[in-house]
């Protein structure tokens, strides 16, 4: 098919079908646009790079982008999930032949709510130190343990879970990866109160919960590898996204907003403020330019080292923007609450910046990753890397 033919087909299909859909409000949980998404999926537009067998059309990246552009022009969601749908990509790559046909179509249509069950109180930066156990039983596994920093667990149907299935293997080698059904006795979800006084995350207490045989992804004991692809995926998405103010509209115009705040505060003529505001906006702009260049270089087949820098860059931007907003507001920043939205924003940003600098791997871990994977600097000696995990924990 030529590019023109493709474009014509998508445009025609959209003209025939797209009538608008309710907006998506949450990243997690069931998608209110499910009906529309199912239509997109069935038409083969949800993941056009995927093979036809899996609802795709086997398009090249270039042609898939044509589809995406058509959808974007129409304001219609649902395509490009072969790039953006973490759950579906993971399932497609690693789910068992029994489970894959059950779950993939639902994921593409947003019909099932999902959450991540990775971190534990004792395994944050050192994710491979998880102690949640999955023990083999008739027809599947029984799971017991505790997970933290889970988003949307209270409305999820499945959790992508890592649990230890082999305690005699070294820490990275005894882990398996599952789609665990969340709606069962034995899975207890409690909200986690954040420093911002919000609760976007949960703790999940798992007590003898059951996972059917076919819900294992990848090989038994091969969970660390599955996890790595899922994490790399998440990181590349994360650097891109600004995570500052509460309102999505504000995020989109981050630069103008800071300038505007300085003007409102009557401080835009202050030379010190001008330097500070300029620097924050510059960092934000540089991060966008880096990301854009990285994508272009990937497009040209050049390897790009920039992709992994986005999250680290964003962390500096957010913390510094919190500082500058506070500087701009002066005494007003002492306040909070709905009557003081500018103060609320400055304070929220100052605290929520840790979501980026700690969440999904701290800045420190991120620098390790960049140093080792991008700059090829040697790893630190890891004392517990090659030791049976049961021996590691016995030694504490």
């Amino acid at each position, binding site marked *: 098919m030529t590019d023109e033919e493709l474009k014509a087909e998508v445009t025609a299909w959209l003209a025939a079908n797209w009538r608008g859909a309710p907006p998506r409000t949450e990243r997690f949980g069931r998608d209110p646009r499910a009906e529309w998404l199912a239509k997109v999926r069935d038409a083969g537009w949800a993941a056009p790079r995927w093979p036809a067998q899996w609802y795709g059309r086997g398009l090249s990246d270039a042609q898939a982008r044509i589809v995406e552009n058509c959808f974007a022009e129409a304001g219609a969601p649902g395509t490009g999930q072969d790039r953006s749908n973490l759950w579906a990509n993971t399932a497609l790559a690693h789910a068992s032949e029994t489970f894959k046909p059950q779950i993939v179509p639902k994921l593409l249509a947003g019909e099932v709510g999902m959450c991540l069950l990775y971190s534990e109180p004792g395994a944050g930066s050192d994710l491979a130190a998880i102690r949640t156990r999955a023990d083999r039983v008739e027809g599947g596994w029984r799971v017991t343990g505790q997970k933290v920093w889970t988003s949307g667990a209270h409305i999820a149907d499945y959790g992508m879970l890592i649990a230890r299935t082999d305690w005699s293997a070294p820490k990275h080698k005894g882990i398996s990866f599952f789609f665990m059904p969340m709606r069962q006795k034995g899975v207890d979800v409690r909200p986690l109160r*954040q420093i911002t006084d919000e609760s976007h995350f949960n703790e999940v207490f798992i007590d003898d919960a059951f996972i059917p045989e076919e819900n294992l992804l990848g090989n038994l004991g091969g969970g660390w590898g599955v996890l790595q692809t899922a994490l790399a995926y998440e990181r590349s998405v994360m650097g891109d996204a600004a995570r500052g103010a509460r309102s999505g509209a504000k995020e989109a115009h981050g630069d103008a907003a800071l300038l505007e705040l300085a003007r409102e505060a009557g401080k835009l003529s202050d030379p010190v403020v001008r330097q500070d505001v300029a620097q924050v906006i510059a960092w934000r702009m540089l991060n966008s330019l880096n990301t854009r260049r990285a994508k272009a270089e990937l497009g040209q087949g050049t390897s790009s080292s920039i992709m992994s820098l986005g999250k680290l860059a964003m962390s500096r931007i957010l913390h510094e923007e919190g500082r500058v907003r506070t500087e701009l507001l002066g005494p007003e920043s002492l306040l909070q609450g709905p009557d003081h939205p500018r103060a609320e924003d400055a304070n929220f940003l100052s605290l929520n910046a840790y979501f980026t600098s700690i969440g999904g791997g701290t800045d420190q871990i991120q620098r390790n990753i960049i140093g080792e994977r991008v700059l090829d600097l040697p790893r630190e000696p890891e004392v517990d890397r090659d030791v049976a995990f049961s021996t590691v924990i016995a030694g504490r």
Partner: protein
Amino acid sequence: MTQVMTHEERTALRDSVRRLLADRCAEADVRRLMDTDTGHDAALWRALADLGVAGMLVGEAHGGSGLGPVELELVMEEIGAALSSAPMISTAIAAKLLDGDRARALAAGELIVAVAPLGAWDWTGQSAVRISNGRAQGVARFTPDGQIADLALLAGEDGVYAVERAAFTATPLPVFDRTRRLADLHIDGPVERICDGSRVAGALAVGLVALAGDQAGGARRVLDFTVEYARERRQFGRAIGSFQAIKHMAADLLLEAESATSAARHAAAQLAGDGADREVALALAGFACADAYVRCAKDGVQMHGGIAFTWEHPAHLYLRRARSGAQLFGDSRHWRERFIQALEARS
């Protein structure tokens, strides 16, 4: 006459305050007060008064201990470390402005006084009170402890005026740091001129030193528990404090916290001795302690990782307090400017 304590006496005073706060102002107490309307622990304040702390700057003639900024600073390090909401800063400033029975009541912990600096002293830039013919009208913004004050003092260049409780309404503000309550005082009524403006600078300097002590103490405490966590918390089979990323942050923070302590104590000593470098020392404490505290609290959260992103962990309480102290009485930008002005005046 300011009393001068020996090193041993100071240490004893400090230890007695520390013990009291450890007992009565533990994290659970702080959190309980955060959820109350006034944020005030009357019983603890009485206990502090019994220790002589409320009246430490009140002269012996009025039932106080007649101590000076050096001892105040030391006590404030404890207050700050414990995140206590006790109205110590207000009380210390008031002690330099009140005499007679009011001073006596202040020392006894029976009179809580909020001080509103006006005119050139108005660090909020938003207060506006008109005083004439024995009456005052207007608003004094962001006044510490205003929500529990029995008396307000309007401190301007042309004099200090006392406002009785009946003549003002205190609107508690929805503060980001719930351990340090502020209120807008809406004043409309008679005032009493209690002294002329010449005492204001000295009194507010005492407040600045008190705040600096609070900041130094807070910085040190958040560093201490962060380092302790770094010694205990294990990841990758090692204590996280054995990793350079954490260890080096801790070393840098130690420099910050020690510098804050030096700055606060130096300002106290200069103020006590009326030293030649008084203005320089005060301005230095005005930003060095605030900056150090913010940095220690900020990096303290980062060093803890995820656990400190929860409401239940105390690190963010210190960050909130650090942020509020960094605005109170003028921000770091303001005090750096004052600092260089003082240097220019000296050179």
